[in-house]
């Protein structure tokens, strides 16, 4: 049985659309909370510290970028603490575990080469007594793509921040 040319084109288009809609890398995020921790209504989160633990220095100010994106993402979900009474507040200490800016040209040449990576670990502590109530891990990679993946070094920070806040939201608002 021969495959007609339009069937081949349709099949390829389907695969391309699937590739386009499913993203172009790996996504992983998870959270673990103390069994005794119960979220209270109106609980808010503050980004207390962002630390680069990779041992590498980067051209971009990854610490400020991540802090800003986390703050924006928390604000969007109405989870950002604006200071005030510490009873209902959590402080988030963020550690950058892995960051690779990557290279869109390399990704275009060979998928997987020039991968952009960001991996973070966040500790959530009660502001009132400093008790650690949970931790969140998030990691994303951009491993495929050419021109459309230019700027992944920046957009990955936004995506990872959203992943972290999603985990916080799941625990605090559901």
């Amino acid at each position: 049985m021969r495959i007609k040319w339009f069937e081949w084109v349709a099949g390829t288009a389907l695969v391309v659309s699937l590739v386009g809609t499913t993203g172009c890398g790996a996504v992983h995020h998870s959270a673990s909370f103390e069994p005794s921790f119960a979220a209270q209504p109106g609980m808010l989160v503050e980004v207390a510290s962002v630390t680069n633990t990779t041992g590498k220095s980067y051209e971009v100010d990854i610490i400020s970028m991540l802090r800003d994106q986390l703050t924006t993402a928390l604000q969007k979900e109405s989870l950002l603490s604006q200071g005030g009474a510490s009873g209902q507040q959590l402080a988030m200490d963020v550690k950058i575990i892995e960051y690779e800016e990557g290279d869109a040209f390399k990704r275009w040449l060979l998928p997987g080469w020039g991968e952009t990576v960001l991996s973070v670990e966040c500790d959530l502590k009660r502001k009132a007594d400093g008790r650690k109530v949970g931790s969140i891990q998030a990691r994303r990679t951009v491993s495929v793509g050419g021109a459309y993946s230019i700027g992944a070094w920046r957009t990955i920070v936004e995506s990872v921040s959203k992943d972290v806040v999603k985990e916080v939201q799941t625990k605090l608002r559901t």
Partner: protein
Amino acid sequence: MSYQKNTYCRIVAGCVTAFSLLLMNGCTTSWRAQGSFNRTVQTELAVKSVPAASVYVNDKYAGQTPLQVPVQYEQEVERRTRKVSYWENQPGWSFLISLLSLGVYVPFGFIPIVEETTLQPKDSFSGNTIVVKVAADGYEPWAKQVVCKGENSIPLETSLQQTQR
């Protein structure tokens, strides 16, 4: 004739599969240490005493017994990396790209270019030596040095001795 053709196809398919598996296993570099970082670990000290008394953790008042007080310290986590092939790292994507490229991508997919990272917590802690003191009026104070190593909870119980006059 048809039987011979089928056998030939099976041999070729078997060889291709074996060769691919061989390549997939071989296309990985060995793990290399890439420094370490400290992760915050929390252990809960469950302090009980007879009679009820004040608890001091590292000379700071923590509350009255019975008490559950969390202490935090740092654990070293080693970061290790290795290079793996894209086939190993993202088999789904590799398959799609191979389809789209009509097979041209297949040999390139076995080049170990993707960095894989693993985090291994080490048995190395800092700030994990905690001094717990229990004191009440009219009783001899009780103190103990606790070395925490990632436990969820450490129970501490004491019966205070009355002060001799």
